[in-house]
């Protein structure tokens, strides 16, 4: 548990970076501090590992005031991922990752063994171990940054806009991997970002900060979307708000229609849905291809897992030439499909949120 107790930070010169912040970050949670630049999100995060000292108030980690812990000791126990990876240009990938273990007093050989494990965990190819940071792509550098932060297995991980400097495709990939990693290792992660989408995708809890470091809302992503506490939060999530809400809703209660038995060559006759149409499933790639009366093929289209979000389900239907998508049930069986009409009852986000 990381606790901010009425923490304020006033920089000399009069800039109020953080104003009377109270925040409780649960152990094992993924908390995202989000807000525009100048909202004190990075300052707040840096107070956790004492890179910034609060002007008033205190920060406790599991009940202990961080001000009472030696800064170096504190930081060695907290992983830190920087915006531009912040790798040491004079060290190889492996030695960059081994840094914290070395600082903790492990021998070079032991630290490197741990570093190899960390590389594996973040999906870095072992052949990169002997390279220098300048020889890596931005995405690879950021991966090394994550591996370096995780190598010593700290209970807390701080991430300072970790994905803002990489291109959108790599960003998405890294976000997914971090989410996946977190599901596995369950660290207490505090991440700073100005990207509300990123916050909504990754966070269990989101703290929305406004300029001057004023906390406007601290809630789950769905609450932020469905019940923004202030106009400021509302303006932050205004874009595609209704559609985004669907990401947090499931397909539970979805009415479906059983698929007809496949004919010869695996073609399923979908005339009941749309005259003349058929569909063919490719189990290997998890996709389906629609075929019209003239034999023209549309696809591949994704199959929708039963545990997918409403957003995924709706998107699949909207993308389909027949306005229908095939559903994969929990056992991997592809036995039914659903249409836009089937989604209708689920598409009432306000009722859902109130429920």
């Amino acid at each position, binding site marked *: 548990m990381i606790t901010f107790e009425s923490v304020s930070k006033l920089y000399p010169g009069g800039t109020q970076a953080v104003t009377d912040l109270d925040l409780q970050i649960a152990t094992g949670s993924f908390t995202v501090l989000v807000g525009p630049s100048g909202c004190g999100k990075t300052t707040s995060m840096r107070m956790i590992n004492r890179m910034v000292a609060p002007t008033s108030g205190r920060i406790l980690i599991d009940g202990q005031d961080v001000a009472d812990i030696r800064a170096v000791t504190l930081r*060695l126990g907290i992983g*830190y991922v*920087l*915006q531009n990876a912040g790798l040491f*240009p004079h060290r190889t990938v492996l030695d960059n990752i081994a840094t*914290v273990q070395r*600082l903790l007093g492990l021998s070079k050989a032991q630290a490197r063994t741990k570093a190899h494990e960390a590389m594996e965990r973040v999906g870095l190819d072992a*052949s990169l171990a002997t390279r220098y940071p300048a*020889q890596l792509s931005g995405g690879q550098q950021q991966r090394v940054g994550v591996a370096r932060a995780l190598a010593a297995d700290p209970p807390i991980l701080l991430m300072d806009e970790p994905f803002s400097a990489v291109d959108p495709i790599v960003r998405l990939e890294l976000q997914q991997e971090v989410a996946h990693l977190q599901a596995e290792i369950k660290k207490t992660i505090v991440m700073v970002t100005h990207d509300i989408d990123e916050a909504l995708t990754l966070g269990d809890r989101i703290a929305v900060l406004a300029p001057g470091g004023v906390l406007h809302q601290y809630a789950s992503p769905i609450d932020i979307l469905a019940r923004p506490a202030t106009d400021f939060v509302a303006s932050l999530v205004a874009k595609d708000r209704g559609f985004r809400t669907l990401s947090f809703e499931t397909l539970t209660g979805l009415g479906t229609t059983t698929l007809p038995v496949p004919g010869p060559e695996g073609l399923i006759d979908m005339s009941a849905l749309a005259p003349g149409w058929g569909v063919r499933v490719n189990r290997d790639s998890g996709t389906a291809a629609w075929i019209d009366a003239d034999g023209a093929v549309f696809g591949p289209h994704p199959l929708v897992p039963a545990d997918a979000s409403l957003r995924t389900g709706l998107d699949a239907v909207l993308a389909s030439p027949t306005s229908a998508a095939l559903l994969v049930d929990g056992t991997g069986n592809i036995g039914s499909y659903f249409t836009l009409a089937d989604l209708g009852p689920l598409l009432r986000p306000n009722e859902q949120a109130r429920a």
Partner: protein
Amino acid sequence: MNWLLDNLPQVLGLTVEHLYLSLVPTFVGVVVALGLGLAFGNRPRARAIITAVASAIFTIPSLALFVVIPSIIGTQILDPLNVLIALALYSTSLLVRTVFDALDAVAPEVLNAAEALGYSHARRRIFVDLPLAVAPLAAGTRVAAVTNVSLVSVGAVIGVGGLGQLFVSGYQRNYPDQILAGIIVILLLALVFDRVIAVTARLLTPWLHLGTAAAANGTKLRPRPHAPEVPAQHGTAAPGQETK
């Protein structure tokens, strides 16, 4: 040229003396400048004072310094220590500014990373700042070393000057061959110094010399043996020493 070949043993002895008189001050200069740089690099006031003093020392003509030092520290006028101390002062003065600049040039995000990961200040200085400062420091050291090689010969006027003694006696005897021999060996010495420092720095900074080919196909790094290098800096340093 013949004179040089005929008097090889004598020239060799003078070369060894010359080496000693130029190498030791260079080394001392690097160590002292590094110490000052690491200790005072982030203290603006101390830094300003050190830089000012260093500039002042560097403007003192070398001959004057050779002559004045004995009266300050009480050595014999012909003691080689005078030359060593004078040249060490020059080297330190020349290098201390380079050290400050080199340490400043370490990227802020790297320092930020070091702090966030849990480096203490002293540890960061030694294991992060210092290695990253090697390349600019080596450039400065090359200038200092070559400057020293030429300045040692001025010591010949007070009787301690390694190969510089060839100039003095060559001039007194009006014997150009001897002077030429001195020039040739000093030039060679400066060239060797320069190369040795450059190559050493290169070996110490493999991350600055990554072949693009190695980056692309993931082959192991190896130093490129015949990489072209900017010509030695003694060409620019040598005329400067004439004024000292």
